[in-house]
């Protein structure tokens, strides 16, 4: 008997039996309501079906062509960080029950998943210090855009005051999401020396009514913003404060919610999600109770079963597209639930003390590296503001040449900052807990030599 192609499970005798039951002679007759001229006349032009071992060798070959954080020491950040992911995270996230479930529309057979999502909301709520967190949106960039829309809808104002120290990619997405929705975006500049939001620029923007002030800390230079002041200034003018954050940093840095931020958003990648060449990651949004009706995405809450016992279920669905359609808070349907599971498992493993140590180690190592690099002739820190684990340095040579040189010696040394503010000679370098002292010292040595060779 010939092997069935792909994952098909109907044998020829099954198909005949079923066609007979339906009362047709053939598949062609089964779908004869499709106009004949539309039917494909020849097979699709696709590669010949592969066995599992052929597939493996093809994919392994493609994968082997890529450099990665395994082939090169990764000092790249830009919102995505090479933090350690405990094996337990993969073990749990690859459980078929979680992996192959749909959105928990049937709560009776989804209590495990609902518990995960509910705990995710609670744990992230703690981290952000806000009472309400949704079950995720696509990524950090769309979390920013969705948060901005929340502010617009909640306030009735259509103007946003946005810091230009937010990740450039996130800003691009924000602009696209707002482009056709009658929203005015006013960008505020940054202080070139400190590398933080320019407060004078903010104050002048606040002269006119706006829905929200939106900023990110640490910002796109790795510098921590004075979130407390930003929030206060927004609130003084009856604006909402929307703050983007780096979740790992919150192990030691004061949470945006503590400073009174109305909406807190983040890219969740640093909490147990693989680098995966850019995704899937996870957008997180937290807020105050008063803004709950404007939240996008799923929310899990507590209810009771018919015996009066506590149970979990999706709640407040009247915000969502399947109920409210064009008036929904967002179009999001499929979200990043599996990433939320990973994050919850990650944070459960870390706990209060573990996250604190991950954050502290990352900061210690980054500050060590920065201080050592600053000792090298020609290198200086680009900004004076305090940073967490990512910093900009000015180098006396062409940054892309330097990156290339270091790449040849096994380092992905940093991100060229030209896209941030048109400086040609600036590098953004991120350090995580996974870089050992030996690695850092080796990097410093190779960095110094490469600079010499280039200058």
């Amino acid at each position, binding site marked *: 008997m010939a092997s069935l192609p792909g994952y098909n499970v109907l044998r020829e005798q099954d198909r005949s039996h079923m066609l007979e039951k339906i009362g047709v002679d053939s598949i062609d007759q089964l779908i004869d309501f499709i106009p004949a001229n539309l039917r494909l006349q020849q097979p699709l032009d696709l590669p010949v079906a592969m066995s599992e071992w052929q597939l493996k060798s093809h994919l392994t070959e493609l*994968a082997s062509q890529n*450099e990665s954080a395994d082939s090169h020491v990764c000092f790249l950040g830009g919102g995505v960080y090479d933090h350690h992911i405990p094996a337990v995270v993969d073990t749990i996230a690859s459980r078929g029950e979680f992996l192959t479930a749909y959105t928990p529309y049937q709560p*009776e057979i989804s209590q495990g998943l609902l518990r995960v999502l509910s705990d995710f909301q609670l744990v992230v709520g703690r981290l952000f210090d806000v009472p309400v967190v949704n079950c995720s949106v696509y990524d950090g960039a769309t979390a920013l855009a969705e948060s901005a829309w929340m502010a617009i809808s909640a306030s009735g104002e259509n103007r946003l005051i946005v810091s230009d120290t937010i990740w450039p990619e996130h800003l691009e997405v924000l602009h696209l999401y707002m482009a056709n929705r009658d929203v005015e975006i006013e960008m505020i500049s940054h202080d070139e020396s400190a590398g933080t939001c320019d407060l004078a620029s903010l104050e002048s923007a606040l002269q006119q009514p706006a829905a929200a002030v939106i900023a990110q800390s640490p910002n796109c230079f790795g510098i921590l913003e004075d979130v407390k002041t930003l929030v206060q200034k927004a609130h003084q003018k009856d604006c909402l404060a929307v703050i983007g954050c780096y979740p790992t940093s919150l192990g030691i840095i004061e949470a945006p919610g503590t400073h009174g931020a109305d909406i807190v958003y983040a890219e969740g990648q640093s909490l147990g999600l693989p680098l995966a060449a850019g995704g899937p990651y996870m957008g997180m949004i937290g807020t105050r109770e008063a803004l709950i009706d404007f939240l996008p995405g799923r929310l899990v809450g507590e209810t009771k079963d018919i015996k009066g016992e506590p149970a979990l279920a999706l709640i407040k669905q009247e915000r969502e597209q399947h109920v409210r359609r*064009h008036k929904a808070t967002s*179009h999001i349907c499929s979200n990043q639930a599996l990433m939320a599971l990973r994050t919850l498992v990650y944070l459960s493993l870390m706990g209060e003390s573990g996250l604190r140590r991950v954050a502290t180690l990352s900061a210690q190592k980054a500050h060590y590296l920065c201080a050592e690099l600053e000792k090298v002739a020609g290198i200086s820190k680009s900004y004076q503001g*305090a940073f967490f684990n990512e910093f900009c340095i000015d180098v006396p040579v062409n940054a892309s040449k330097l990156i290339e040189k270091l790449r040849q010696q096994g380092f992905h040394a940093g991100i060229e900052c030209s896209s941030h503010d048109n400086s040609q000679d600036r590098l953004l370098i991120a350090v995580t807990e996974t870089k050992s002292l030996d690695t850092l010292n080796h990097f410093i040595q190779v960095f110094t030599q490469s600079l010499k060779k280039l200058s």
Partner: protein
Amino acid sequence: MNPGTTLKAARRVSVFDLSQPGLGGSGITDPDFDGEHIPDELSEFATRKNTGLPELSEVDVVRHFTRLSQDTFGVDLGPYPLGSCTMKYNPKRNDAMADLPGFARVHPAQPKDSMPGLWTLFHNLQEHLAEITGMDAFTLQPAAGAHGELTGLLTIRRHFESKKQNRSVILIPDSAHGTNPASAAMSGYICKIIPTTKEGTLDVEAMRSMLDGDVAALMMTNPSTLGLFDPNIEEIAKTLHDNGSLLYYDGANLNALMGLVRPGDMGFDVIHINTHKTLSTPHGGGGPGAGPCGVKAFLEPYLPIPVVTRNDHGEIEAQFDRPLSIGRVKSYFGHVSILIKAYCYILSNGAEGLRMVSENAVLNANYMQSSLSDLLPPVFQQRCMHECLLSGGDLDVDPFDFVKRLIDFGVHPPTLVGAGCVHFSDEYDAAMLIEPTETESLAVLDDMIAQFRKVAREVAVARYMIETAPHTTDVAKIITDEPAFLSMLEADKPCDSKSS
């Protein structure tokens, strides 16, 4: 709470209940850095006293989440005929390929020429998707179906802007999924709703009467969310195109068509594919999926950046400098690991395998429909595509209760109004949308049919068993009008809601 909770109790406890201060973060140490002292320069910011995160040992985490997984129903446990969601088997080999370190450990900000294997994969996948759907170009950026819709609609917008036409209306059939109108609104469009005929097709006359210079596009899925192929599709396409409007294909139901018919050949100009439906990437408990968006050649310049394509030297690269592009819809390059799984699925099936996927999906749905027709007559008296819409109106019991009883017999309930992801007009209130998918064998289908019949027999003899189902789950039936509260910790006040 005793951390040694039993399986049944796992769902009742949160990770906070299991916390034992001092047990968390074991092994997060470094021989050369103490992990405690905050760098001086940072001390002004690093003032956080505590996060309030729970502290669990590794073994407690593993047990707790393993137990929770056992209180979650996935395709790996049994048939999941949830209409419109295409809950088919998700091949394990695809997961293994996506986890290869040469993909999973790539940082997206690496130099663009440091990931040629990825660009080749993207390029191949784009070409295969174009072949399967009959489109000319694809972007793999969108994160999910709804995100593909947004991308496609913004592309349509840009097309009309470049032609200096101001069109503000998107037409949407009343049976459309909620994401369609929601995405249209996010793209700045006004939605107008087209009714469905008694035969379950789009009302072409009504559509015609709504056409004017303001209509940018019609969003449609064919087969529709009623499981029917719309035979008037060419006429619909022609009428729209004559009006200067475009046709958008919601690819959520593409599982019925591979190797049989192509949206591009039907006249669609823009399409998204839900890889988590048709191309078998796992749903993950609600996501992540991916929503690649395909277009006809005239729309290609507007696709979001980056665009992966061949440059003048024949090398495949990611291009960012695309003056006509709508811009960026998300960070980086899309849901890469999901796209890898979709690519593996196509390669494992080949052309014949994919055609058979769709044939068998249609065959299975029709077999269910035929086998159940005495009990649950088809809403439309005709053969269906990959899912069938059956009426529960004759059941003499609330279909909502009926399907809950299926849970006790190992079958995930089909889609009902409010219990799945699709929208039905009120007239189909008692209808169930059953999508068995092609990965259920005849034996499994026969068993599912037997379970439907068993429940139907119970209506007369043990009605209460249905009305109070399910009985095999730790939790009892959950009804929608019970008040629900957002879970909150201590100080945070609960707020009222309905668990609709």
